[in-house]
């Protein structure tokens, strides 16, 4: 059994609970073991970087240092956490003046960080450690009725292009096709959802997300698939409000990619946290069993 250190981050324990539900369920099913990093702290997200750069790197260096005690890769599902951890490693490597301060702070707390931790996103883990071929073999319920718009957002693919293209990534599209879904062409797949702007400048956030919803609808998608808590929240929790403001877009369910992998593997809706949705995915999910029954 392959083991990983799991760095959940704050959102996954809160508004993105169903991301955690489905991630844990899928990894369990695939025999990948996630061990939560004991006493992890917040990565600082985009906010801390706006206040104090070195402190922000130091906070995430604490997580890296705690993780280094175990000889395992770190899996971070939230795009913001994933980026911050990668960025911390990159900056302490490239800027000795930052490294020096971070090291001094770690030392004061009896911690060290040598730099050996590998940061990974669960999407990439599924692709590389399980592989599309193996996943295909394990599909119990092909997602034949799903026409998905794969939405990657920003921070998973930029600025560190670890496993996919920064403007036109395709890994999630191929994953979805492996599960039997149809991935529609979605040119706005890495256009920003505005992140926390929805909370601070709602008008701006609503418009940015309207563009994403409208494009998915126009191109014939019946759902959107995301990799990030903030993208999912903006697109789903605010969707009714957006639809009310800009007419002409029907409701469209917004899943985490792990929820769809889980459905295809035959994991129950409850375990995948589908009951936590605000825009109901029920009719689409039900169509799954109808399609299975009539499929040749």
């Amino acid at each position, binding site marked *: 059994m392959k083991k990983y250190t799991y760095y959940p981050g*704050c959102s996954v324990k809160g508004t993105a609970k*169903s991301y955690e539900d489905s991630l844990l369920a899928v990894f369990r099913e695939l025999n990948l073991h996630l061990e939560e990093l004991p*006493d992890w*702290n917040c990565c600082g997200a985009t906010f801390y970087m*706006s206040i104090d750069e070195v402190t922000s790197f130091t906070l995430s260096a604490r997580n890296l240092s705690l993780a280094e005690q175990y000889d395992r890769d770190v899996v971070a599902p939230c795009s913001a956490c994933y980026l911050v951890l990668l960025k911390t490693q990159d900056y302490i490597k490239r800027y000795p003046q930052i490294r020096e301060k971070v090291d001094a702070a770690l030392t004061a*707390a009896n911690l060290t960080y040598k730099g050996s931790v590998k940061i990974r996103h669960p999407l990439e883990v599924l692709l590389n450690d399980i592989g599309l071929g193996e996943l295909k073999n394990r599909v119990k319920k092909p997602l034949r009725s799903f026409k998905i718009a794969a939405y990657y957002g920003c921070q998973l693919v*930029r*600025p560190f292009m670890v496993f996919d293209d920064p403007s036109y990534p395709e890994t999630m599209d191929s994953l979805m096709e492996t599960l039997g879904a149809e991935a529609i062409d979605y040119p706005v797949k890495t256009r920003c959802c505005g992140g926390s702007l929805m*909370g601070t400048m709602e008008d701006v956030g609503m418009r940015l997300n309207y563009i994403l919803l409208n494009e998915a609808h126009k191109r014939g998608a019946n759902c959107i698939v995301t990799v990030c808590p903030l993208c999912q929240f903006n697109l789903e929790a*605010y969707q009714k409000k957006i639809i009310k403001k800009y007419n002409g877009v029907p409701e469209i369910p917004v899943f985490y990619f792990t929820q769809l992998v889980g459905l295809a593997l035959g994991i129950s809706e409850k375990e995948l946290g589908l009951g936590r949705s605000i825009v109901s995915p029920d009719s689409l999910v039900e169509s799954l069993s109808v399609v299975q029954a009539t499929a040749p």
Partner: protein
Amino acid sequence: MQTHRKVKYEAELDPSFTKWVSTVPGGERIRECFQCGTCSSICPLSVYMDISPRRLIAMADAGFKEEVLSSFTIWLCASCYSCSVNCPKDIKITDIMYGLKRRAIEEGIFPSRHFAIPILAKAFANMVRKNGRATESRLVVSLAWRVSLFRLLNMAPLGIKLLLRGRLSFKKEKIQNKQEIQTMLKALEANR
């Protein structure tokens, strides 16, 4: 008749700001910007900005300190990194935006009073400093308290839905070893 001169004479610019901006990690190559406009054209927020990213880079480099620090632009930047990965001169525009946000907070210069974005950023940082983790629900409430209570009413229906679905809790998230964070923060402070 009074005339208002919009353009600054060179003597009125701040050369120390020019120098400082090139020391922001990621901003080392700002002088090499050849004003191609790739950043402005790719930025999903540029339509809302008072100064486009291309122009802001030129102004920061020229030393228009007040104008740059009091712009909405730096706060509207959502850190999507589209500009950074596409700049032909490999200027890390996103990191420069972060540097400018930090400098604006340091100097207390904001585009308007009660401007929500830096207030939220500060509330977030304080929460993480104190507890080691962020509790989303508490952030929203503290922001509403400081910016406008009307927001809270506005958010209530969504809040209730999230609560019912187990996606919102007011329990304070915190780490066990808060002392460790305090020790690190103190060491950073001493080393400034």
